């Protein structure tokens, strides 16, 4: 089956007062129809920027330097702003990180949803209102008529998140970008939201790109996962495979750092910090923190190659390992 989304070599730079920040560098991954791809990494790894870049929402001083984003066969990077606007909210939608701040404080939540129906589907006010109520019911908000007339500050965090999901799914997009949808929510509410996302995804057949820093979320909901570090994808594969056999040293460290209730042992934080993206090192960006670093790592940037079918890794050490294993 053809992929719904194919991102190839996406690079985003920011011209800041302090210099050029290479926020996203050569990112490549795919999303198939109906699947949930997790994008996981520390803060500052470029996950959110990637999502914004997909929707061409990068504003100056940022810009997409190069790359292709093929969605349903069309390269989004080459589209005009008007053409792109037709994609946003209709074919690709996004759910943002902090639900309260992502909702307009001076408009009722109902209005924020219903106007999308008016905009994208040419609905009348009344129709928009009706569909909004439907949508709110779909995302599990009780008393939708009353809630629709309320403002963001009157709703709890979990409810705001549901409203956002309702906004995003209003026009049945094919792809949903969810940027840290559960961060800042109570654990139980977070679980509900994740279930909701998964259900709605299955029901509408939409694919979901789930950005998170929480491996637990990935394990819970995602089919495949891409691991990002310092603006680059270091490993991509099925969730089961990645968790069972993480290949990239960073992924291994991430998986190891999850506290497990059934295992004894101390917590193992990852040493060092994400390198500054202002003047990133020429070779592998994980080199300074990597326990398996080789000389070549500091010189050449490792390419993302298939280690096993459906399991790509960008690491020299892994390459060597694989070559040796093949004999």
């Amino acid at each position, binding site marked *: 089956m053809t992929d719904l989304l194919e991102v190839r070599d996406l690079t985003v730079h920011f011209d800041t007062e302090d210099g050029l920040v290479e926020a996203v560098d050569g990112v490549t991954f795919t999303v198939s129809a109906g699947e949930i791809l997790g994008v996981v990494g520390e803060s500052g790894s470029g996950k959110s920027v990637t999502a914004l870049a997909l929707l061409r929402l990068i504003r100056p001083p940022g810009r997409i330097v190069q790359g292709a984003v093929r969605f349903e066969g069309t390269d989004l990077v080459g589209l005009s702003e008007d053409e792109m606007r037709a994609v946003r909210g209709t074919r690709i939608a996004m759910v943002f990180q902090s639900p309260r701040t992502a909702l307009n404080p001076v408009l009722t939540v109902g209005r924020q949803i219903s106007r999308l129906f008016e905009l994208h589907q040419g609905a009348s006010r009344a129709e928009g209102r009706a569909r909004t109520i439907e949508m709110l019911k779909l995302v599990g908000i009780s008393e939708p008529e009353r809630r629709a007339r309320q*403002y963001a500050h009157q709703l709890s965090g979990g409810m705001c998140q549901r409203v956002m999901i309702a*906004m995003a799914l209003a026009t049945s997009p094919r792809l949903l970008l969810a940027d840290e949808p559960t961060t800042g929510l109570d654990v139980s509410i977070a679980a509900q939201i994740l279930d909701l996302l998964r259900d709605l995804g299955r029901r509408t057949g939409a694919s979901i790109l789930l950005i998170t820093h929480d491996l637990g979320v990935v394990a819970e909901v995602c089919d495949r996962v891409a691991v990002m570090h310092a603006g680059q994808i270091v490993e991509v594969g099925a969730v089961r495979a990645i968790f069972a056999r993480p290949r990239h040293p960073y992924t291994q460290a991430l998986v190891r750092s999850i506290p497990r209730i059934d295992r004894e042992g101390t917590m193992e934080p990852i040493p060092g910090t994400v390198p500054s993206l202002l003047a990133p090192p020429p070779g592998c960006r994980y080199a300074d923190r990597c326990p398996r670093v080789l000389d070549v790592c500091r010189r050449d940037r490792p390419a993302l190659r298939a280690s096993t079918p459906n399991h790509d890794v960008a690491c020299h050490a892994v390459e060597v390992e694989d070559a040796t294993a093949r004999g």
Partner: protein
Amino acid sequence: MGFGRYVLQRLLLVIPTLFGVTLIAFTLTYLLPGNPALVKAGALATPEHVAEIERRMGLDRPVPVQYWRYVTGFLRGDLGESSSTGRPVLEDFRQRIPATLELTLASLLVALGIGVPFGVLSAVHRDTVLDHVSRLLGVGGVAMPSFWTGLLLLYVFFYLLGVAPAPLGRIAADVPPPTRILGLYVVDALLTANGPALVSSLHHLMLPALTLGFAVMAPLTRMVRATMLEILESEYVTAAWAAGLPRRRVIYGDALRNALIPVITLLGVIVGFLMAGNVVVEMVFAWPGLGHYAVTSLMTKDPGPIQSFVLFVAVMYVFVNLVVDLLYGLADPRIRLR
């Protein structure tokens, strides 16, 4: 109920402020040179006569009593008398307030009408020529004394270009003022369909309104720009854009609506500037308003008007700020619906 509390809070705060205001105004009044009894009695009065009037006016009573009479007198409408006009100050006020009101409103329109769009466009087109010009005007505008601006405008538009009238008042000498409905010449002329009066009063209102409007525009533009910039960075603007709303609509709809709310709070301060600026601008253009009246009474050592003027302005200012606070509470749903 939250909003009710907000209103109550604001109202309660006003009371001690008003008390302090009357205290200060009274102290200043008490210190003013000039003997109001002497003024009332006239220059040729005998000392006994003056003393009699002093007794009647309560000037021989202890200070707290005088204060009480001062405040109650003000509330009653007894604002003393003016020696230059020979009339009760209240009468003079009533005659002069419309002129000041008209100037204030016109200047407010100018400031809002030019300042707000400038600030918004400046934020939307950040770091362009427009932005730099607007910021330059903002920084420069705050430093320019309003009387200087007015005089320069007079020189250019009256003397050099001849498009503005001589600074002799609200309307040309040979045009009778319109029938008094509100006392605002422009409005009255419109209401009575009085063409010549409308043209002439607008003509005369032009420069003073521009001067005063420009004087208060600078802080307004700055704040609008800063608020707008902040909001353009906010997540809900990006989210609206991500939902497919056209960029223009997001900026001039969603973002602007949010940006204008904090600007309401600035209105109170601006009205304060306007009240103060009125005094100077009215002098420059010989505009027969309250400020002009206050200054001329000062010059002629006529103490009556200035006492009441100061108190009147302060009380007005307190109430304007109260109204602004309430408006802000209404406009922001986060406060209106706690």
